[in-house]
């Protein structure tokens, strides 16, 4: 599309008329070469199927769920790691290099924050180092037993960490069919498959031939059923496919009508995010 002088004024309304006729396919209309080249490009774009492509309906829930999960992770991370006295910050990754900024947009002084943390750790260590220890002979046996227990625990822990459990978390977002619903799910890899625990609130109980069905969906839209239930609190489900590839968790309303396909009545959905 060629350079153009700008949005048309009332004076060149006729030009818009002629351009519209050319776009409509009127072969008799005469345009200058630049206009014609620009409109040919526009026609080529209009004939491109990708321009008209509609995103799948569940993409909205996936985007909302993904950001909700990230926000929840950041909040958890802040509570666990960020000292209360340190200013809150947001990590920005795009565009430009990784930076940390305060809420007001000023850069976080990472060196100062590190120094404050080191100072706190040092003062805490000092308190521990200064603590007096007084061990009576009568409790040495108990101490020895405790040492053995600690050693055994350490061995067991080391054995566990040699085969770390993979875990995915899902922050579920409600659809318009269940506006008051909220929930989350955890998915743990076991030898039998993926053990899923769902905790959802705001879903009215369904029974008398109606129930909720949970699914995992992959990028090609293939749905795998992972269990059905009447109420969303404390639900245990199992999946034989990995959330790594079947990464969208959805819940639909179903009826026991002999049709095994999804009804398409989604009440909640969210993306599975691996926890490391």
């Amino acid at each position, binding site marked *: 599309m060629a350079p153009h002088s700008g949005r048309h004024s009332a004076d060149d309304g006729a030009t*818009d008329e002629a351009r519209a006729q050319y776009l409509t396919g009127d072969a008799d209309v005469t345009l200058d070469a630049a206009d014609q080249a620009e409109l040919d490009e526009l026609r080529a774009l209009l004939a491109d199927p990708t321009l008209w492509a509609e995103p799948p309906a569940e993409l909205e829930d996936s*985007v909302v769920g993904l950001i909700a999960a990230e926000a929840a992770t950041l909040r958890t991370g802040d509570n666990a790691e960020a000292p209360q006295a340190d200013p809150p910050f947001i990590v920005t990754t795009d565009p430009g290099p990784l930076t940390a900024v305060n809420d007001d947009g000023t850069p976080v002084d990472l060196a100062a924050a590190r120094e404050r943390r080191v100072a706190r750790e040092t003062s805490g260590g000092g308190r521990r180092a200064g603590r007096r220890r007084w061990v009576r002979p009568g409790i040495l046996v108990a101490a020895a037993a405790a040492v053995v227990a600690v050693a055994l625990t350490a061995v067991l822990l080391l054995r566990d960490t040699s085969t770390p459990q993979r875990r995915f978390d899902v922050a579920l977002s409600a659809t318009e069919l269940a506006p008051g619903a909220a929930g989350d799910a955890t998915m743990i890899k076991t030898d039998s498959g993926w053990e899923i625990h769902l905790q959802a609130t705001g879903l009215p109980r369904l029974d008398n031939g109606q129930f909720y069905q949970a699914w995992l969906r992959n990028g090609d839209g293939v749905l795998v059923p992972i269990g059905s239930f009447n109420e969303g609190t404390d639900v245990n489900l199992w999946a034989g496919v990995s959330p790594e590839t079947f990464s969208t968790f959805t819940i639909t309303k179903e009826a026991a009508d002999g049709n095994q396909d999804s009804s398409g009545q989604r009440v909640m959905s969210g993306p599975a995010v691996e926890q490391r």
Partner: protein
Amino acid sequence: MLSQEDIGRFRAGDSDAVRLVYREYGRLVYAVARNLLGSPQLAEEATQQTFLKAWRSAATVEPGRDLAPWLATIARRTAIDIHRQESRETAGNLEDVPVAHPAIVQEATAIERTYDVWQVRQALDELPADERAVVQLQHLEGLTQTAVAERLNLPVGTVKSRAHRAHKKLAARLGHLREGFD
């Protein structure tokens, strides 16, 4: 147009605000990603990543600034990153590619095309549904106005008047394409 309050809530991770931003720009981001990547699955991935990156860096958006050019830029960069990841396994050494290869020398054109896709899709979304349907059948399916009338079960005169109205709106709305975003 989103309010500053909406953008502030988006920045805070408020689900309702994220949904508002998605509903305003999701189709446009998806159209850009789909145009650059082709694959529906990759376009979905690019759309998700675009909004996640936008949310992460929402604090950098100047107050009062339209999100559209910023989101279009993130969408384009994200789609290109995904394209590079996908093609890494099959691509040869960059040094083996001729210097005049279109993939290397047409960067500026591609940026303009991204903005064109964004704006043309936005203009189409602003058309009334009945006019949009006529434009879609004419350009995407290559139907004549007579064939469009048969497909929509409408008189040919109605199709002609809808097509004319729609194309006049598009011609006026897209007359400034090359000026890019504000």
